[in-house]
């Protein structure tokens, strides 16, 4: 199955990566090359085989309900490109 320019444009949008038309042109055959290669998995008979849910057998641990974290606003904002009055600031969103 191969991807079209339109599909790649849509994926770039889903992934929030800006792409010029030239980049798109270059990327489409690259992606098709890789997708064509991975498609050989279609040869494998996987009837009755469960998808892997845990790499190594392990139990999901549940932790106690205690406040052990937070209250560290300085650390949280320390690397922010734009922070104001204790908030992260982003270009305005219209809802």
């Amino acid at each position: 199955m191969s991807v079209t320019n339109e599909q790649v444009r849509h994926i770039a949008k889903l992934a929030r990566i800006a792409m010029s038309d030239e980049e798109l042109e270059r990327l489409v055959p690259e992606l098709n090359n890789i997708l064509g290669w991975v498609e050989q998995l279609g040869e494998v008979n996987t009837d009755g085989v469960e998808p892997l849910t845990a790499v190594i057998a392990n139990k999901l641990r549940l932790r106690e309900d205690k406040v052990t974290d937070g209250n560290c606003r300085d650390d949280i904002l320390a690397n922010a490109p734009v922070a104001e009055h204790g908030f992260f600031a982003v270009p305005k969103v219209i809802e």
Partner: protein
Amino acid sequence: MTDLTAKTIAELREGLLAGEFTARELAEQYNTAVASARALNAFTVETPDDALAAADAADKARGSGELGSLAGIPLGIKDLFATRDVDTTAGSRILTGFKPRYESTVTANLRRAGAGMLGKLNMDEFAMGSSNETSAYGPVISPWRRADGGNAALAPGGSSGGSSAAVAAGIAPAATGTDTGGSIRQPAAFTGICGIKPTYGRCSRWGIVSFASSLDQAGPMARTVHDCAILLEVMAGFDPKDSTSLDLPVPNWEAGLSSDLRGKRVGIPKEYRIDGVPADINALWDKGIEWLRDAGAEIVEISLPHTKYALPTYYIIAPAEASSNLARYDGVRYGLRVETNGGLDEMYAATRAAGFGAEVRRRIMIGTYVLSAGFYDAYFTKAQRVRTLIKQDFERAFEQCDVILTPTAPSAAFGRGDKSADPIAMYLNDVFAVPASLAGLPAMSVPGGLDEQGLPLGLHLIGRELDEQGVLNAGLAIEERAGFTAKPKRWW
């Protein structure tokens, strides 16, 4: 003054305890070595003061006898590990200048044992690569050169290329690496050092920049098997902050080292004999078989029928997980932000386009695609089913053997730019390494010999879940018989 940079960690530990030299002398020698090797571009940032501080603390503690197992040993830390207040970039432009206010569990473990840090090591961007050519901070050049005198710059392997180059060049006694699809083992093979990826869940992933969550594992890269055992014991251990961490005690791998393989069976998988692989690699594999036989092991032919599907399986699952793990790099809370005249989505798109390199963008696109509506079952679920089959292959094989021997990589180190044209050609570097990653099994590369061009070749051992000891022991048996003492001739 003795060249302390020629010593292994085991030797350094003895020497420090015996008072033959001080930790400060050791740190100073390494700091000098690091500063003089910038042509390799192995380090993205140098932290000589950190190494000195740990050294001084070790020298002070020596009197009281309360020395950690790595007291005063300076290490290189792959730039994927968060190190408090020190730049952590994951080899990417999108994290330029990011200084975490926290320390990864693995590096905290090393520090608690007394180790210091020489600096952060360069790497393929977000650990995606096999040649350290995708770093935003320039490629790492291997300290090795071909014997043909051509001076071509060679790749040190990847993604832990800075780690392998530094250890091989003798500018760090050891380094941390991470391995998702071979990124410890393949660079170790390319540069003639040892590297081990433990069982999935042995080392905590907390504080390691996440690439593919179900595959990432930290591990040591060092000059000897013994050194790897020492380091892995410190790095590993249960971490309640990582839900995939194994709640099991860390075995005494160092104490358990033994190259006596009597009673052990070594499996040789027929599917790993591939067309197009250079003759000297298969020849080394045959030698490896002899060495293990000599160590007392029985050699058994085994089959891992789904081997050839491992790479495509990996190249669906890893990009899928990565596409989601890398969504957080959006210019809002840390890292690069590119302002535009548009709104939020425009900022996201411009930031990520500018911040991510081509290989990372490619893999995010693949990952997004294979998870998207209409394709999820055909690609992602299918790959997870095949992954189960691959894991079952190993389970069946380990009924007939205790450890598996293969070559580490299908070639020696290649030249910079040799494989950049075709991503798939680059992906094929990991053909022997990836199956063990998919199955979560411990695996190690040890140097076996040199090829016709005088470049190192590695042998690869895969063990059962939780049997790092079996892997280390087989690695030790090879190390003892291979007699690999070659070092790169200094050109930097």
